[in-house]
């Protein structure tokens, strides 16, 4: 089936089987391997990407469902000049990653929420719901929570 995905602002005309999940098409067809498959049943969240601005499990969406849609992956987080995204800086500063496998998923869950409303940094419960969306086996989560709070504080345009 012929579809077009806009991934990180770039158009990808693709011919995919309907059964191929978005994660596989991003990884294999678009060669964007930053999106990882950790469980393939929607639990771990390593594959989380933004589809039309909202964080979704890319293992639980078919690529054909996204025809004509816009997808953002971890490769599209940094600015056009390569300037790191506030979340990328904050994750490093807080040591919120060790093996790094789950990291893109956490970044995208947080990016989706913060870009809609940077004010969530003022609401610990909403941040907790974000951190509680995915699984990390290395860090114990607390550094990830701190990183999201830090990114919210350092969000461009926020009063410091």
């Amino acid at each position, binding site marked *: 089936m012929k579809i077009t995905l806009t991934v990180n602002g770039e158009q990808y005309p693709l011919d995919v089987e309907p059964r191929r999940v978005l994660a596989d098409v991003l990884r294999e067809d678009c060669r964007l391997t930053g999106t990882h498959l950790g469980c393939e049943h929607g639990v771990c969240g390593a594959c989380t990407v933004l589809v039309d601005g909202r964080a979704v499990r890319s293992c639980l969406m078919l690529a054909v469902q996204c025809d004509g849609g816009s997808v953002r992956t971890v*490769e599209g987080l940094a600015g056009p000049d390569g300037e790191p995204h506030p979340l990328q800086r904050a994750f490093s500063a807080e040591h919120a990653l060790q093996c790094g*496998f789950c990291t893109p998923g956490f970044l995208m869950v947080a990016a989706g929420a913060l870009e809609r409303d940077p004010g969530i940094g003022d609401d610990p419960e909403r941040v907790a719901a974000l951190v509680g969306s995915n699984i990390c086996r290395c860090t114990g989560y607390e550094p990830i929570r701190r990183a999201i709070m830090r990114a919210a504080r350092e969000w461009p345009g926020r009063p410091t």
Partner: protein
Amino acid sequence: MEHWSRREDERLLTGAGRYVADMHVPGCLDAAFVRSDVAHGILREVDCSVACEVPGVVGAWSAAELADLPECPRSAATLQDLPPVPHTLLARLSTEEAVAGREWPVLAKDRVRYPGEALAVVVGEDRYRAEDGAAEVVVRIDPLPAVVSPSAAAADSVRLFDGLSNIAFLGEAGEPIEESVWREAAVVVEARYRQQLLMPTPMECRAILCVPEHDRLTGWSGHQMPHRLRRELAALLGWPAERIRVVVPDTGGAFGSKSAAFPEFVAVAFLAVRLNRPVRWVEDRLESMLVASRGRGQDQRVRLAADADGRLLAYELTIDADVGAYPHLGVGLPMQTAWMATGPYATPRVHAGVRSVLTNTMVTYPYRGAGRPEAAIALERSMDVLARWLGIDPAELRRRNFISPDDFPYQTPTGRRYDSGNYAAALDLALQTLDYDGWRAEQDRRRTDPDALPVGIGLSCYVERSGGEPGGLHEFVSVEAGEDGTFTARCGASPSGQSHETVFPALVAETFGVDAARVRLVEGDTDAQPDGLGSFASRSAQVDGAALQHAATLLIEQARERAAVLWGVPAQEVAWSHGTVHPVRDGSAAMDLAELVKATGPMRVDDRFEAGMAFPFGAHAAVIEVDPELGTVRVLRVVAVDDCGRVLNPMVVHGQAFGSVVQGIGQALYEGIPFDQDGVPLLANGLLDYLLPTFTEIPPIEIKGTCTPSPSTPLGAKGAGESGCIGTPAAIVNAVADALRVADPDLLQMPLTPDVVWRAARAPKLEEIQ
């Protein structure tokens, strides 16, 4: 580096990390395995004929068919039959006697011994097509009764191997204790503990990609021991090791579970060579649920004797250990528990006995802690029971029995020689950090308030072993100075999240007195670093770090000698500082090392460095709250004080300790593998059934440290990172027992799920039976 606190971070945060499944190799085939859905049975039929006709399927083979696979004419292989899965005798973890007659076939031949055992391999143009083929393989198995616990299997009423006992190994540590000791003691605690089977569950499952090129094979794998994998792949292919290259790209966690050549690895290497095409296997989570190696798995019995003042007289630990279906590392692994049975106490008599028993489960293998959590949990749970029975504060009971700081090195009754320690200091810091007295007061207050939820406080003091066992305490490293002023450090370690690229260059740079940016680390490539042991047993900082420091020191010596020759002065007249050599008497004539290399030729030190075993220790404390009506346990606070000697990078060690505590909470409360009556794990919904801790469950955790350097290397580092798995579980369980004041310790078996706790809450209290 300005944005990044670790060198690893930039690529891992931008999607530029490269794990095995991310590698793009043109023409690469995907392997999928057909697996047994029964735990134990006679394999009657495996028919791959329909699968072979599925579009996109390149081939499908059972064990019998694979033996007949014609050799690819362009292949460099001279393979006959699929060899068995390699086992290792390293560090006495298995024995020839245990394995004899019980070899682990890569694909089951006539008998299935664990659920998920591979029956056929299907290779397709991609994973979708390989799975299409796998769905068409016809399998017929006549089920046999299954045994899933070592105690049940030890009776041999169901045998995994006809004519052979399920008991694959017997071992002991220490001297047996006379009955009179138990008879005459003021108090003897007796209890049974189940150390449940756990799944290490790194977020990246296992993976291997084998690429044949000319007469060589390159295996890419997220792996802890690339050199061992190279050796094992070479042996099974019948090739010299030089023809195998193993490369470890980014690895998404391991926790002990990624150091073997697993059945699937053998099949993939074999097929890549036979087909002369790149083949990969990327384990998916459901496969991992069935056939990733398990950790822990012990049925324990303990006896702990003390006098009326709480001075320990004797401790006996009897272990039935779960080996899994084939004797692999799980055979000798429980000896770690036996050797560490003494713990941090000066108990005069300690004896531990081990029976390693085959069961119809996937093999048991090291999982973060690997034998030491089982020792610490058994002892520390028993200490809290003893304290309650004697009416002594559990902290005070421990203080009365600690090995004194003056008694190191300390030879334990179970055969360990502890290097250094100050156990009381760690406990005191933990109690102070927790506000132990404050929580005891809160506990008393709640006991008088009928509407308050009971709280419990649990302690756990541990000593563990890091670095490895004799014969595996060395590492191979090299340090090289370049003409451009940079340094290249190489070592045999292989990280899976432990920040080696950041920590080791900083250590080498510090030794040289240069900026860390000038030092580059190379590891995880057997072509770049021909010898190595790897990353396991918390050894990387302790052994590789000490080795790199040592090699750097040797390189400085070499530089001084060369400069001495160049300048015609004695070597002792040449000084080193900040990456330069200069004559002692004339600091202005300094020569940068890069110039020295240009002047005198390449400069490189290759070193085989031997460290000693080290014994990290610590004290963990937990406060929990129980809802007795529902049996839910809420962890209110955890304090972990760990002593891993010299800390190379506080941020990294803190991160390791924190994550490890959370895995320890997982064992205590959430993780476990239930089985149905036929021995099949009840994990059909994957991670919705095997419950890892999530952020919602994480209490406030405070990590602190004391520092007692290891005397066994100049660096003084001990292992870090397994502490939480070792120290935390017993603290949590003890806290629950403390809240419920339950008389029978056997009622609280991990994981402490709500039903377990609810039942324990209704059971007689200690004061009711005394």
